[in-house]
């Protein structure tokens, strides 16, 4: 049973009729993901990519039996789309949209409380389970099924690490992008917990960066749980200037809080192996797995 995504996952796409939705739904289906329909208000009843287009998520969920949704709705309406999916009790929602206003995400977080939805993103590349399916926009080709689970705040570094892990003769159980925004759905700590429970995952790689407290939360969590699975982390932004926003809205270090050195110290103290540089993650994983044997 893979994390988040398996052969029974039936995917709905919100915003499927737009350029990004069309392009990526086609790629997802090529990869073997079971996409069952789309939602675009005003275009209900049509057909797109040979799939039915619905007016509302609740109706689409009823008629297609979808249990996951991927959101490509532009920033102005992305929060409304996520809240609609939450209200329709969609179990899993992945939001790819970049540049969603932060107060909109605050409202989405409030809607998530007490609900049944797990949200991944926004500003996430999604989830990839090699050989099973993808619920996202990542390029494929360098991944292969295996035992390394990857949780990341960065899409481009995930692609890089997937390639390094494969080059080291290993494969991936799942890759999950938690997104680059400060306020987002599921975080590193929850993803790590899922991967530690997952039978197919033998090792977890965390890709973190400056800003926020997700890495520190992971360190606190690891102080409380026992695991025999090795955990490797790459933290980027050691050399970034203080209090400047570096690309990701979530990535800025306020003096003394959220800086790379503090994150590395906390993770090391929790028993996490730190990859010394971004080009050495595959090698660090290989050593961690060899050292365990």
């Amino acid at each position, binding site marked *: 049973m893979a994390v988040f995504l398996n052969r029974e996952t039936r995917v709905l796409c919100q915003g499927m009729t737009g350029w*990004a939705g069309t392009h990526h739904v086609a790629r997802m289906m090529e990869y073997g993901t079971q996409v069952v329909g789309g939602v675009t208000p005003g275009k209900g009843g049509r057909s797109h990519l040979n799939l039915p287009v619905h007016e509302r998520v609740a109706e689409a969920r009823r008629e297609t039996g979808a249990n996951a949704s991927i959101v490509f709705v532009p920033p102005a309406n992305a929060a409304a789309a996520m809240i609609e999916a939450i209200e329709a009790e969609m179990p899993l929602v992945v939001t790819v949209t970049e540049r969603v206003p*932060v107060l909109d995400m605050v409202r989405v977080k409030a809607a998530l409380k007490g609900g049944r939805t797990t949200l991944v993103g926004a500003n996430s590349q999604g989830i990839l389970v090699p050989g099973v399916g993808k619920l996202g926009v*990542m390029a494929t080709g360098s991944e292969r099924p295996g035992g390394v689970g990857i949780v990341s705040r960065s899409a481009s570094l995930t692609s*890089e690490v997937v390639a390094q892990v494969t080059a080291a003769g290993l494969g991936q159980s799942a890759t999950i992008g938690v997104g680059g925004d*400060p306020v987002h759905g599921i975080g590193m700590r929850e993803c790590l917990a899922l991967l530690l429970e997952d039978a197919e995952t033998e090792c977890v790689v965390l890709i973190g960066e400056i800003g*926020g407290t997700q890495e520190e939360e992971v360190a606190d969590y690891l102080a409380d749980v026992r695991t025999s699975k090795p955990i490797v982390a790459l933290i980027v932004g050691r050399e970034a200037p203080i209090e400047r926003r570096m690309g990701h809205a979530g990535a800025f270090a306020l003096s003394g809080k959220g800086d790379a050195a503090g994150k590395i110290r906390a993770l090391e103290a929790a028993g996490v192996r730190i990859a010394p*540089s*971004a080009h050495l993650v595959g090698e660090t994983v290989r050593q961690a797995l060899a050292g365990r044997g």
Partner: protein
Amino acid sequence: MRIHEFQAKRLLAGYGLKVPDGSVAIAGREAGEIARRLGSPTVVKAQIHAGGRQRAGGIRQADDPAAAEAAADGLLGTSLVTAQTGPAGHRIRRVLVETAVAAVRELHLALLIDASSGELMLMGSAKGGVDVEEQAARGDIRLNWLSLGDGSEARGKEVAAFVAALGLDGAMHEQGCALVDGLRRAFLELDASLIEINPLAVTAAGALVALDVKMVLDDNALFRHPELAALRDEDDGSAAELQAQRHQLNYVQLDGDIGMVANGAGLGLATLDMLVAAKGRPANFMDIRTTAKSLDIAHGFGLLLDNPATRAIVVNVHGGGMQPCDTIAEGLGIALRRSGRSLPLVVRLAGNNADFARSRLQNFGCAVIDCPDMWSAASQAVVLAQRGA
């Protein structure tokens, strides 16, 4: 987007915040006239997008109009270097001339978004002033926190207790609660991501007056606030950074000699770290968003080529599903044709359409040093930049 102190004060005055009387001047004589009109001792404050002004001498007391004029003359047109500006400092183009307000006591109050809970958070301390962050870090002052959830409710009872904990009682307590409610409404209506009042003065007459305000608006929400988008000060900070924003790029000017480009913020930060680890000095940070087209990217490379300090450029791309390598190669090719400048160019192309990108570069006639992995690309760029020095 950070806005100036005078802009934040004007916006928040509309939500009931009391601020000192004052006005903005762009010349010394104008500052003197404002001080004369105010008819009281004044404070002349440099308007730049950075904190630490007090310690850097950017805030000056003036007892009379002549002193205000002299203070403004001393500030305007100079560059103010503070702990937050970087070594070049920020050029002072405006000063705010305000009535000097005597504080019996100074508080610190802020409204911000807590990333881990995803909630609005009110933060306050019974002491304010220039070194409040350091004092809080040392544990010398206590910070009070109150979650306002998604901000949709006033939470009157909790706010009342929070305000009381700041040591505000009687008529001051009522004022404090009204102030917090005004800040909450402003935060939501203006799509702010930070409002910080430090110090918030308690005057002898029993008024709460905001002596300094720092306010940051959410760039991602400016599409629904054209009137706020217009507040952007295009002359403050780096012009290159602003241009890059318009072209779907994130750009931060640094002071080294190696131009750096990556697709994705994480990969960009990793590249920056590797350049420094290889003993190089990055001239900038540039991350290409997935929404950038080849002409946007060409613009970004143009910024690097136009920076006279750049001696070598390193391009680190791991093509993804949204941004394949060839789009970036095309942007680079266009920029090199436009610029005519020839600099050592190190590329690392991997992932989606990497081979296609190589042939695109060849067709453009770009001479590049093609590295198989990012560490060799970073260290090669460092060697080439040093050779060019």
